[in-house]
């Protein structure tokens, strides 16, 4: 598949897209509709809007190189409004009224769990682009974001290797941090480490004074933070005000990527650690092309991060799977997707495993003063995704039908 694209081609494509949208009915025969369902309003919009952008970029690029099975892809964009109930309604609308062949979207675990029954009932297929807590395995979802063993556990290994044995777990109070910490605790104890504290703040909470005192008393070697959203700004500000620097106490954040670092103020997070499967700073030809194409379409000051690139590759893998299956049928496509050969992408070589999650490389990085991330550790090759951690969820395995 020809992915490289220049600005001229995209301009031509934008014009073509406009023509397509203006005459939807007459073009029915040689187009195929896909759903793009992200929060474009509400508290999650800041993160999800850019994933929608990169999803549309991939659709543009595929259309520019001739579409799929001779058909142009027409995205139907819906707004989940940061509300799980609306995600569920819109997913049903996309499948039933718009007759889309597949849907790309979702961010929070709550939105995914709300959409899951809809996709199962209508035998459709959702491509989910964000890292999550695992402990879920649906035949109707392609999980391209990291499983716990591809993000949080490699970061724990890295910390342990560097002698950081006393770990303080801090998170926002909802399903992802609670499950992630459940898994982390089991592994810390198994590896001979110590859990020196476990604390949760309500989503959006702004007061960390008691928690910072507890951190001071516990004297951990490292803090693993699954604090989400704006609370991070309060946490880092109050930590700095209390005289604790990142040199004395490293913070490993699992919910801060380049986008969030930019929005929070890069000086706050500089020196802190983060773990993902993609950083904008990764050096490979696919990434260089992806960054150039994204900046050409959405502006040169754009910042790219992990969920965005997952939103992008999901479309590419879907198109490749459709070609392999020779059909848009969701069942045939998901089976074909797991049989595709490993392919190069901005985040390295990737491939969907038999359990419909993605083989990918884990990276641990350190924030630089400009908000970009320097890779300090990476796994040996792509890791097999494991939705059910053997220590935390013994006896459970993921078998797709």
């Amino acid at each position, binding site marked *: 598949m020809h992915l490289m694209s220049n600005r001229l081609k995209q301009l031509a494509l934008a014009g073509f897209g406009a023509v397509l949208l203006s005459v939807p009915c007459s073009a029915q025969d040689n187009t195929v509709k896909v759903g793009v369902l992200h929060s474009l*309003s*509400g*508290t*999650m*919009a*800041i993160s999800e809007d850019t994933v929608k952008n990169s999803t549309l970029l991939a659709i543009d690029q595929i259309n520019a190189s001739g579409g799929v099975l001779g058909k142009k892809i027409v995205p139907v964009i819906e707004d989940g409004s940061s509300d799980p109930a609306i995600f569920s309604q819109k997913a049903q609308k996309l499948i039933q009224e718009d007759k889309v062949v597949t849907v790309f979207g979702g961010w929070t675990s709550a939105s995914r769990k709300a959409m899951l029954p809809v996709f199962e009932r209508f035998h459709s297929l959702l491509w989910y682009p964000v890292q999550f807590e695992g402990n879920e395995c649906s035949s109707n979802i392609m999980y391209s974001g990291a499983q716990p063993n591809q993000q949080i556990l490699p970061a724990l290994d890295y910390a342990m290797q560097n002698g950081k044995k006393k770990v303080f777990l801090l998170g926002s*109070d909802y399903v992802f941090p609670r499950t992630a910490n459940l898994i982390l605790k089991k592994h810390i104890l198994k590896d001979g480490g110590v859990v020196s504290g476990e*604390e*949760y*703040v*309500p989503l*959006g*909470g*702004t*007061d960390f*004074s*008691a*928690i910072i*005192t*507890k951190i*001071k*008393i516990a004297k951990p070697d490292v803090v693993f933070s699954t604090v989400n*959203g*704006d609370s991070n*700004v*309060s946490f880092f*500000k*109050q930590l*700095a*005000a*209390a*005289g604790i620097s990142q040199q004395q106490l490293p913070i490993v954040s699992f919910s801060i990527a380049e986008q969030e670092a930019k*929005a*929070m*103020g890069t000086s706050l997070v500089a020196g802190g650690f983060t773990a993902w499967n993609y950083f904008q700073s990764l050096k490979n030809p696919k990434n260089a092309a992806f960054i150039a194409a994204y900046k050409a379409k959405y502006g040169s000051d754009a910042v790219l991060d992990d969920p965005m690139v997952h939103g992008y590759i999901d479309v590419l893998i879907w198109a490749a799977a459709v070609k392999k299956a020779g059909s848009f049928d969701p069942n045939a496509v998901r089976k074909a997707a797991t049989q595709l050969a490993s392919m190069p992408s901005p985040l390295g070589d990737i491939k969907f495993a038999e359990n419909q999650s993605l083989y990918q490389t884990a990276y641990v990085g350190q924030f630089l003063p400009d908000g970009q991330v320097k890779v300090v550790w990476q796994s040996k090759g792509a890791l097999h995704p494991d939705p059910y951690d053997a220590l935390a969820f013994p006896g459970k395995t993921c078998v797709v039908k």
Partner: protein
Amino acid sequence: MGHVAIIAGQIFNGFSVGSILLLIALGLALSFGLMNVINMAHGEMLMVGGYLSYLACKFVHGPMSLLAAFLFAFVGAALLGALLEVTIIRWLYGRPLDTLLATWGVSLMLQQGARTLFGPIGVEVVAPAWLSGAVSFDTGVLAGLSMPYVRIFIISVTMVVLVLLTLFISRTRWGLYLRAVHQDREMAQALGVNTKLVDLLVFSVGTGVAGLAGAALALIAPVTPTVGQNYIVYAFLVVIVGGLGSLFGTTLAALFVGLISSAVQMFTSVSLADVFLLVMVIVFIQFRPRGIIFARSRNMKEA
């Protein structure tokens, strides 16, 4: 850290949390306590104050930026409060449920407005360099204790506001009018007090102080469209526990809530501390339904 240092640190944290609560609750104590208006948009005045201080810091640099931020936040929030009073609240006096719904609508509009103008993620006010250190103890029983300058600054601002407000109410002519209207509206009116103007003044001073709270909070937390929602419930709690119409009671209640919640947080989680606090307040209200200090007034219906 020794035990003494930990206890001292939590008392300090309690004062710090309590002083922010107090700044928010003072405005409510004026509008809810003195005028019997349930202003659901009070939290959004805090939010507006936060965004105004962010804007002020963007345009004014140097040592004056913090002063400009607080001034801008106070005046801006007070003007917005005045506008709210003139356009909506004035027409709904004596109809508390209508006021509640109308101001709730205003609160939603302000939140969405902030989201549209500034985006859904928070903006940041960077505290000036001289506020970035902390008073730290390295030896003695207090070893390990550190009190950030920025929190000390917020406590000081709150004390100054409290003193100024008390002086305003007890020593000035307008403060006298305010007390007169509070005690007996009809009689004050009969004696020539312009009660409409007094209402307007009280309400806008109240929202202005909430704006100050927003500017103070912006120093330690991000300003988001929904930041007011985190504090509005606690502010009402403080006013009710303190006793309607008493600034002194409000002050005691704010410190009580701040100290209790930071003490309990040391032993349990943040969420459980909230539960514990609410249970304590409910029990307290059973024994003192009118709060810590209750000011007698003919203006309010005796329950």
